[in-house]
């Protein structure tokens, strides 16, 4: 059996009294695309932030290529980040820098010359379907363009693993399809491993090789899109069909 690219074991994280993650286990195999679905506020973003080292887990392990990242020192962890790309929900572009400097940021920090980095940024922007935006500032971009620039920035340093945090939130259906296709293309062309968090079932079905649902701090099951459709678990059924009545205990509601 191949070692999983990412292995999350018994991950726990609480904020104050609130247990957000309560023992999450998740495996992502090399070259695979896993989509984590779940209600808002079930800790999907916290899960990704723990894997990236942006939050310290209370318990549990995070193994990437068999190496435990949760115990690494800061500097070591930063070095490992070169193998990772991350697309943030709001794109999180640096608004003090032009588009091309945003895209080539990691390369420039690694000491690449301005000219070479700019060419490389242009290529990657071309790849996500953007032309002549290199010298624009992020504030001048529309939401969909910002997201594509964010995607370009995430892949510019050729990462092995890409994380997507709600990649389709806030986009119109056409742009959502454009981004989904881009993600699929990147996934198949560059042989990267992807971990996506989403609440869109459409994205989960089209982009996920496997889907995991996070509910009340645990993940229920990992399954393929087909299995998801035939799954009889009432909680998963309610989520997939998007009904407000059912066994799911909504925060703030009494059921």
């Amino acid at each position, binding site marked *: 059996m191949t070692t999983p690219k990412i292995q999350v074991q018994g991950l726990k994280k609480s904020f104050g009294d609130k247990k957000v993650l309560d023992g999450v286990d998740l495996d992502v195999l090399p070259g695979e695309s896993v989509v984590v679905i779940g209600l808002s506020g079930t800790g999907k973003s916290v899960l990704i932030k723990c894997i990236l080292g942006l939050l310290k887990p209370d318990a549990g392990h995070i193994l990437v290529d068999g190496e435990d990242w949760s115990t690494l020192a800061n500097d070591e962890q930063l070095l490992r*980040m*070169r193998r990772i790309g991350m697309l*943030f929900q709001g794109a*999180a572009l*640096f*608004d003090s820098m032009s588009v091309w400097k945003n895209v080539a940021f*990691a390369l420039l*920090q*690694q000491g690449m010359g301005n000219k070479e980095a700019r060419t490389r940024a242009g290529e990657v922007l071309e790849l996500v379907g953007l032309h002549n935006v290199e010298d624009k500032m992020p504030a001048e971009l529309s939401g969909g363009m910002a997201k594509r620039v964010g995607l370009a920035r995430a892949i510019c340093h050729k990462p092995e693993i890409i994380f997507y945090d709600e990649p389709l939130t806030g986009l119109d259906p056409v742009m959502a399809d454009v981004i989904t296709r881009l993600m699929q293309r990147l996934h198949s062309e560059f042989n990267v491993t992807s971990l996506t968090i989403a609440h869109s079932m459409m994205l989960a079905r089209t982009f996920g090789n496997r889907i995991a649902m996070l509910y009340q701090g645990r993940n229920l099951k990992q399954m393929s899109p087909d299995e998801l459709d035939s799954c009889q678990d009432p909680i998963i059924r309610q989520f997939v069909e998007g009904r407000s009545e059912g066994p799911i205990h909504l925060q703030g509601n009494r059921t």
Partner: protein
Amino acid sequence: MKVLQALGAWVEAVFYAAGRYPHLLIEILRRIKRPPWFPQLILEQAEHVGVQSLPVVLLTALFTGMVLALQSYIGFHRFGAENMVATVVSLSMLRELGPVLVGLMVAGRVGASFAAELGTMRVSEQIDALWTLSTDPLRYLVMPRFISAIIMLPLLVALADAIGIFGGYVISVFMLGQNPHSYLENSTLYVELRDMYSGLFKAGCFGAIIGLVGCAEGFYCQGGAQGVGQATTRAVVFSAMSILVSDYLLTAWLFQ
């Protein structure tokens, strides 16, 4: 009961803040020994902290020196000691008013902008994004601001001292009719070099306070636009208060 609750919340807030500043300071000191130091960013921040603060700082210093000459003249005139005006102006500018007033002005201008800028970057996940692009946000954002504040404050104060003393000279000589030669002589006669050093040393400390408080408030900011607003307010209030308190402590312990 409500009063107790409010008091408790206030105490908690103070201790929370009090823990955050040393924490950030330790994180900075841990990193400062080894590169990268981002000299380009330090320069950019030095321009923002120093050069762009010049108009505000110099105007403050000029009028402070002028009013100081005027007020002390009124007082000394009552018992015929007008020639002491020059000494009072230069001593108080160098030892006290230069560093403190510049510190307070810069706390309002620069401390607030540190907190607002870093706070916005925090809530829009730009700080997290730096991390995922294998760049340490503390090194990249906090350290250049902290270092440039420490370097630029003494330089600003040196200029402010000179302008303030010049303001006092202008008022005394051209308005109050004092002898220019003896005014200049009295300006330096009772002033020691350590008066100036103490002021510049204080300025460096105030720079550290402004950089640390402004960056800490922004860097650990939470909760959207409202959070950024609160962080900015706290940055100005806490750094101004810390400047005044530490000014007393520095004077009492080091430079009596």
